[in-house]
């Protein structure tokens, strides 16, 4: 039986990754250092606030963000008090802060990369044509696949966790930023141009403010995706709440993984409601 030769796609990718680590090790190290200091800065900052102040602070923040006159705001405030209190009581506060720092660091990178990319994709048809398949791959590729090169490039720990999370959660922000900007009414753009605005003024004074609800929806979506990546990232030593879940799975300890899981959900709900509120506030 004649066999069709297998295309050595896997080999090529492995070799490519080897080549990159061999020749660009220094730059990778610099990136790694930068991300590492970003995470520790965030983590230390968050830990500096005592738990008994931190939790009420979140409750107050939800009242401010959603508007204290509205019953929903009080609902979220109560939920924060009891939910975060529960996490603390379960001795998972330390893990929660670590997870939060990881997600925030990843989100910061996502904002830095994602918003300019979204603007670029909105302005140029060519850019959109090139970006679309790349974003499709990033979004549909199983999240585990990012972990291996992340580990090879950056070793084990928090840094590859942040990198993998960033790549995984980037697409919705790019897409929603581009969508929001493209949906700014043509008449509004014409009006702005008719007053002699520069490209930068058009972008900064009209397109971004008008697209802001959509951009905030993108921010919200990317944070949510980032949180869902946390558990997976713990497999390469990213720590945090994901670690609890992972340990629970490996030890067949249903209770332990449930406790870790519910903590992630509590954190997710609070962040989701808060970022949504920031997005909607501008509309009213």
């Amino acid at each position, binding site marked *: 039986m004649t066999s069709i030769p297998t295309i050595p796609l896997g080999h090529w990718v492995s070799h490519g990754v080897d080549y990159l680590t061999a020749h660009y090790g220094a730059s990778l190290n610099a990136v790694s250092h930068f991300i590492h200091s970003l995470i520790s800065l965030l983590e230390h900052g968050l830990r500096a606030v005592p738990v008994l102040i931190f939790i009420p602070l979140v409750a107050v923040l939800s009242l401010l963000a959603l508007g204290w006159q509205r019953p929903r705001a009080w609902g979220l405030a109560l939920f924060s008090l009891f939910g975060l209190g529960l996490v603390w009581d379960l001795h998972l506060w330390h893990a929660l802060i670590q997870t939060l720092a990881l997600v925030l660091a990843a989100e910061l990178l996502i904002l830095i990369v994602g918003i300019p990319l979204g603007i670029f994709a909105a302005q140029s048809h060519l850019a959109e044509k090139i970006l679309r398949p790349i974003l499709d791959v990033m979004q549909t590729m199983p999240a585990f696949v990012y972990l291996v090169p992340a580990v090879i490039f950056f070793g084990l720990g928090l840094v590859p966790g942040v990198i993998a999370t960033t790549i995984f959660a980037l697409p919705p922000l790019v897409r929603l930023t581009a969508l929001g900007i493209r949906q700014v009414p043509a*008449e509004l753009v*014409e009006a702005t*141009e008719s*007053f*002699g605005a520069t490209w930068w*003024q058009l972008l900064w004074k009209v397109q971004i*403010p*008008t697209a802001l609800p959509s951009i905030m929806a993108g921010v919200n979506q990317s944070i949510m995706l980032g949180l869902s990546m946390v558990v997976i990232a713990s497999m390469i030593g990213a720590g945090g709440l994901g670690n609890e879940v992972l340990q629970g799975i490996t030890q067949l300890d249903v209770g332990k993984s449930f406790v870790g899981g519910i903590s992630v959900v509590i954190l997710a709900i609070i962040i989701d409601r808060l970022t949504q509120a920031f997005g909607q506030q501008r509309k009213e």
Partner: protein
Amino acid sequence: MDQNAAKIEIRHASKVFGREERLALDLLDKGLSKSEVQKRTGVVVGIHDISLNILAGEIFVIMGLSGSGKSTLLRLINRLHEASRGSILVDGVDVTKMKASELRALRRRAFGMVFQNFGLLPQRTVLGNVEFGLEIQGIPRSQRRERAQEVIETVGLQGYEQRYAAELSGGMQQRVGLARALAADPEILLMDEAFSALDPIIRSQLQDDLLEIQDRLNKTIVFVSHDLDEALKLGNRIAILRDGRLIQVGDPQEILSHPADEYVSTFVEGADRSKVLTARDVMQNVRTAANPKDSPRVVLRKMERSGFGGLMVIDNGRRLHGYIDLSAVRSQREKEQLSTDLFRPIPTADANAKLVDLIQIITDKGSPVAVIDARQRVIGVVDKSTILAALAQNDDGPTVEENHADPTPAVAMASVPASQAESSASGS
């Protein structure tokens, strides 16, 4: 500034949208229509080979149905669209050849634009929207606030400064749009179907306001509209476009009385002539009149000969002394001269008075109106029958020949009683 200088000159401007630009222009030059060109090349024709001058200080209305290219033409003026061919001169400088920075400077200095759907920033207040153009120019906050406040008062928006655009009614939103366009005190206002999205009463109000503002500010206004009544009301001159080509340019009276072709006349059919035609357009010459020096016998003979029951009294200097009717003259039959007591006052009107106002006077006073010039001399007369005849042209659906042959209908002279007036109108 010279009022009759061309502020904007459009020279052989064409705009087509699509890849086969060259081919499309060639076909258009050969006389193919918009739809034929589109079928053959896939190119959408905006406008083709339009040349016209827009004068400083006038309201110039560009009119046509949707797809006629009127908005495209407007956008060529401030280069929101790039012309495919031809040139557009603003104050003698070719806009199509400007560098990006020069174009921005021109847009900031010379143009204010108002849009059909307002184009306001929803996240800004009225004040924030009005000062937008000034902000683009980099004018300091306090200065632009002050100027914005002034313009807000000009358009009647005081008290709404801190409201968001989306909270206002359409008419109010368009006032914001107008204020925004006026804020930088541009020389030229470009208005793209600015009042078309508003309901009729609000639209008419804003038209009046625009005319009033124009009286004070004396801008050059280019106004795009699909509504003939609006064009006739606002326009000092009107350009009519069809399928991307210019059909006719003229002042409202010309458009109404000499439509260039079938297309324009069908447009004109629906127009309210009474708001456009003036006393000058419809008045009759005074063929028979009494002289204050006439004896009663002479006046009676004049009445008999002309068949009228009353005459205007006009002296040799064509000055109006009043109106005299048959019974009054009869009562003085034996006298040597007419007594001035018998002259009844007769309403007068300026030659530029609109028909709609003359109708009001004639129904109120029940007598004809003498048309007088600036030196109070009688130049003509308007009565019920003249008005009916002028308006009746409308209902017949005027044909080109009819209008060219006789813009002012022939009817009996002034001072005909109402019953006769109707029969003479229907007979004409």
